[in-house]
């Protein structure tokens, strides 16, 4: 055995399902994940990926023992679409094991197809090499002729019947067949078994033409499957006839993967005809005209092979019925495009026909001289040959008239894809694998058509991005768009900028060092004390002077707290991540949790409502059956006592456009009383940011800012955006084309001002009220007061050591022999000093000062309480201080207390501080 033979045998082993990319991707995301069980949708999708045609699909079902009712139903419903097929399969007795078995069969067929192509190409290559040798004696040449003849009969005249007989034989006989192959290779067979001595050079020539033609059609999935399925039919199920298959073909039109129809390829394609064609038909016609293949390089061709099948499937659906229209294509535009292509193809065909005619005459003359048979006889036996492969007979034209046909043909013959040799050489040189040629050719044609279609469609969409905005009619419209995104592998959209993404805690013009865990704020609300960090809300309740710690309140899974504020003694902690929302907390426990899909890009609290703006990208983790129409819609709702009550944003509230993308910008308001959703609106596409009040920034062919107000949509185009953020009076946009600049748009979406010199690598951008925060990838922070959008004012930031207390902050400074604790309240985006406490300390002690536990800090309108500690050289002194604007401060100290002051609460007008030693009241 040679290495090549062993390689080919080794590769006959079917790769198990577990390691195919579709299954491995799940394992990548979750180490514990098992390959998913196949359902009807996944099964159909995978079949389609393998290029299984409709007729084969039926054969597969029959061959693998699907109930007859299923196959009959599919046959009898020619207009059945994917969803119909899914429903039919789901309602049958077929289970995931059946799907797996059928898929395995299909995969076997597919892999065998590849193997056959490889074998065939290698045979051809060998034959080329042998036939290229000019000095071969006729006797030495005969095995080569025999091989071609053998090839001719087995691989061409009988299409794949003989090939499959061989494969089936191999399957049955195992090693015996392998031996016979090696015998064949060694030339050990008896002459009468493999040689056709009577085959003359002329026969060979004509035969070669036939070979060429037939070889043009590499084994398609359908052809290969026919054979395997017929074997299955013999053993498992009644054989299906051709008419059955045809009806099935119509029925399962979703699987029409543009199989090459040789009859159709034969027919002329004229302009008029093209203008009448549907997308699918035109596509097939164009495909049969391989003249456009040279327009693409093989890379494009390779990658487009699958898209070709996919697209033609989709368009096939579109032709079937409106409900199956998964790809919406501007037919007018396409027709124009195809007309151009068809015109070009037509001209080329005429030229080819002319040259073919001339060649045929030459061949005829040559044959008349060397053989008793006439060309016309031969041609009458193989009418397709002359018609289908006009280019094949070009080669002799270039040769001297008296040249030996035997020497000419082998050069021409292996280029058996009705292409000229130049093209063959090109592909061989680039890929080094001749057996890819057919795939490259067909894919190139497909890619050419797709490229043109995509260009025209894209141009059209680009011009109408804004105009095409409309509210969805129903869920199906959105569902189709989602499915289209899934089918076309539309990449995930832009990553949205989460609010308060900065590592540091920001408060007005202060950048507060919060330590390892980002502190969001401390709140003392009546008898409840809360400390909010990214990870949790720590709550304590003061009851009759006793501090009762409560369990930490953590945000939902895969989220983190980003902001918190209080209102009427209740705490609202907003979170973001996989989902966004807020928790209403009172009495130290969670009252309810509002949930909204997506990353939080904006929030607002006003009029008893908390409004959230999120950007949500669904994950394709469900099937696409009718039952799943709502699965990929954004959801909002409330969770009370562990029970989620989520509803999808109604389709009539979702704006869609023609731009690609399956992410949503979502804006919704929630009542603070009950968490009930109101005013939910969403936009579908590739959103960059969503405001809390129904404004969105999204990318399409260009950038688009839009506002949904009642049923009115107002919009403004811009350049493509890398980042966007919405404030109360406008929005800020960083455009992809202009790095280092941020444009400030007014409420009317007109540019009012521009920030320059911003970091070229913006990390995130968001508004807090009127203050725009821009961070860069190296944690640089820029804050700009955009209260006046025409004249934004950069805020000079100050680093400080301190804590945030709702709308106030307490910072601590130690310099000039003094400890200064300053309370500042937020006004107009900057901190304004409210009151301060100053204490003189020796320099050594000053250096040891630390602010106390943040939970011990509290503020009200006038009074501020906070603890701090320092080392006096002998003991650690923990001191709690209460200070106001005017009155002298009150303090209380403890020495070497185990915990220091850990909490504080207000009792009447007095603040009580809690330490390990008990409750202390500053005097």
């Amino acid at each position, binding site marked *: *055995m040679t290495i090549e033979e*062993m390689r080919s045998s*080794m590769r006959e082993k079917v790769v198990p399902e*577990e*390691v195919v990319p579709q299954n491995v*991707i799940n*394992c990548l995301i979750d180490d514990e994940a098992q390959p998913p069980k196949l359902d009807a949708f996944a099964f159909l999708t995978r079949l389609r990926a393998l290029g299984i045609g409709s007729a084969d699909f039926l054969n597969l079902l029959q061959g693998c023992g699907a109930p007859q009712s299923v196959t009959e139903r599919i046959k009898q419903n020619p207009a059945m679409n994917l969803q119909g097929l899914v429903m039919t399969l789901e309602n049958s007795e077929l289970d995931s094991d059946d799907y797996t078995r059928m898929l395995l069969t299909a995969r076997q067929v597919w892999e065998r197809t590849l193997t056959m192509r490889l074998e065939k190409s290698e045979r051809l290559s060998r034959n080329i090499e042998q036939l290229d040798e000019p000095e071969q004696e006729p006797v030495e040449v005969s095995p080569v002729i025999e091989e071609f003849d053998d090839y001719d009969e087995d691989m061409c005249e009988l299409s794949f019947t003989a090939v499959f007989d061989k494969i089936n034989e191999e399957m049955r006989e195992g*090693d015996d067949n392998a031996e016979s192959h090696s015998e064949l290779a060694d030339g050990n067979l008896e002459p009468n078994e493999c040689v056709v001595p009577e085959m003359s050079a002329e026969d060979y020539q004509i035969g070669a033409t036939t070979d060429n033609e037939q070889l043009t059609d590499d084994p398609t999935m359908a052809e290969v499957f026919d054979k395997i399925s017929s074997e299955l039919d013999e053993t498992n199920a009644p054989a299906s006839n051709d008419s059955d298959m045809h009806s099935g073909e119509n029925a399962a039109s979703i699987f029409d993967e543009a199989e090459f129809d040789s009859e159709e390829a034969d027919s002329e394609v004229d302009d008029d005809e093209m203008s009448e064609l549907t997308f699918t038909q035109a596509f097939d016609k164009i495909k049969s005209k391989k003249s456009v293949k040279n327009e693409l390089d093989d890379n494009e061709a390779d*990658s487009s092979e699958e898209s070709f099948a996919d697209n033609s499937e989709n368009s096939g659906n579109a032709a079937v019925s409106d409900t199956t229209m998964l790809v919406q294509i501007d037919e007018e535009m396409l027709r124009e495009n195809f007309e151009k292509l068809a015109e070009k193809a037509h001209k080329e065909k005429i030229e080819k026909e002319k040259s073919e005619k001339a060649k045929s005459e030459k061949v005829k003359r040559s044959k008349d001289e060397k053989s008793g048979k006439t060309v016309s006889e031969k041609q009458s036996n193989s009418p397709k040959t002359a018609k289908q492969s006009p280019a094949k007979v070009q080669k002799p034209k270039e040769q001297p008239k008296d040249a030996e046909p035997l020497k000419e043909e082998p050069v021409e013959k292996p280029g058996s894809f009705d292409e000229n040799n130049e093209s063959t050489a090109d592909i061989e040189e680039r890929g080094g694998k001749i057996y890819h040629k057919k795939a490259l050719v067909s894919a190139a044609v497909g890619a050419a058509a797709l490229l043109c279609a995509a260009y025209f469609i894209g141009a059209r969409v680009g011009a109408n991005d804004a105009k095409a905005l409309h509210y969805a009619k129903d869920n199906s419209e959105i569902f189709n768009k989602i499915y289209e995104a899934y089918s076309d592998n539309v*990449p995930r959209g832009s990553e949205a900028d989460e609010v308060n993404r900065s590592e540091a805690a920001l408060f007005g013009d202060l950048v507060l060092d919060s330590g390892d865990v980002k502190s969001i704020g401390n709140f003392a609300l009546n008898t409840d004390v809360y400390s909010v960090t990214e990870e949790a809300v720590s709550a304590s309740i003061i009851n009759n002077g006793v501090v009762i710690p409560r369990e930490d309140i953590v945000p939902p899974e895969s989220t983190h707290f980003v902001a918190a504020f209080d209102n009427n003694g209740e705490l609202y902690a907003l979170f973001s991540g996989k989902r966004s929302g807020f928790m209403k907390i009172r009495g130290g426990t969670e009252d309810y949790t509002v949930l909204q899909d997506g990353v939080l890009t904006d929030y607002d609290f006003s009029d008893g409502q908390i409004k959230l703006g999120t950007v949500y990208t669904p994950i394709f983790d469900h099937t696409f059956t009718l039952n799943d129409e709502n699965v990929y819609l954004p959801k909002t709702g409330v969770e009370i006592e562990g029970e989620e009550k989520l509803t999808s944003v109604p389709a009539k509230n979702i704006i869609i456009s023609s731009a690609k993308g399956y992410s949503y910008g979502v804006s919704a308001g929630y009542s603070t009383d009950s968490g009930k959703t109101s005013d939910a609106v969403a936009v579908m596409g590739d959103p960059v940011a969503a405001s809390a009040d129904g404004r969105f920034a999204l990318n399409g062919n260009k950038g688009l800012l839009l506002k949904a107000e009642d049923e009115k949509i107002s919009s403004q185009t811009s350049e493509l955006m890398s980042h966007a953020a919405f404030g109360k009076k406008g929005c800020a946009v960083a455009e992809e084309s202009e790095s280092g600049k941020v444009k400030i748009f007014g409420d009317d979406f007109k540019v009012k001002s521009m920030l320059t010199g911003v970091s070229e690598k913006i990390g995130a951008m968001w508004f807090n009220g009127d203050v725009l925060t821009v961070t860069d990838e190296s944690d640089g922070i820029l804050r700009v007061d955009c209260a006046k959008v025409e004249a934004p004012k950069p805020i000079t930031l100050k680093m400080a050591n301190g804590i945030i207390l709702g709308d106030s902050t307490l910072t601590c400074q130690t310099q000039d022999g003094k400890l200064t604790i300053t309370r500042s309240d937020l006004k107009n985006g900057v901190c304004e000093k409210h009151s301060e406490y100053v204490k003189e300390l020796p320099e050594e002690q000053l250096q040891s000062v630390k602010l106390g536990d943040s939970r011990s800090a509290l503020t009200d309108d006038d009074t501020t309480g906070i603890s701090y500690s320092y080392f006096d050289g002998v003991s650690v002194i923990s001191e709690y201080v209460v200070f106001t604007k005017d009155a002298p401060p009150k303090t209380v100290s403890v020495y070497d207390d185990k915990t220091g002051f850990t909490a504080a609460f207000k009792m009447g007008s007095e603040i009580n501080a809690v330490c390990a030693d008990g409750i202390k009241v500053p005097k």
Partner: protein
Amino acid sequence: MDKEYYKDLSARAADGDAKSFSKLYELIYRGMYYTAYYTLPNEKDAVDAVIGAARDGFKSIGRLRSEEAFEAFMMKTLCSRIKTICKENSETSGDADENEIKKAFMQLEDYMDRLCAALYIACRLDVSIIAAYTGTLRGSVKKRLSTALRALDLE
């Protein structure tokens, strides 16, 4: 695959995009599987090796120095996995229904011989690349291949 597209996919995969990674993986998974299948005694181990290599590769693709070296990166990861499995399960018996070629491979006692032969035959790799993937010297690979090809009765 277009070179730029390939690089783009590599970059995306390095950023943790599983979909991009799976597209790249699609280009090489058959070679990976055949290497594992003909080196390891049983198929389950081969599947585990490939999936494990894919996981390892995905987790550490951020360390990929050149975007164009994805295949080498993955094959090295796989070879490393295969070696580990072979060392841990030195006495694992083969599958009952294995094909003739697998049986012939299993006649090679040294798993490194099988690995080199599988890479050489199934993946069409040359000696220097096999040496790089398996972390052995070229001379050693040549010797192993010589042994293996003779044992497999290959011309």
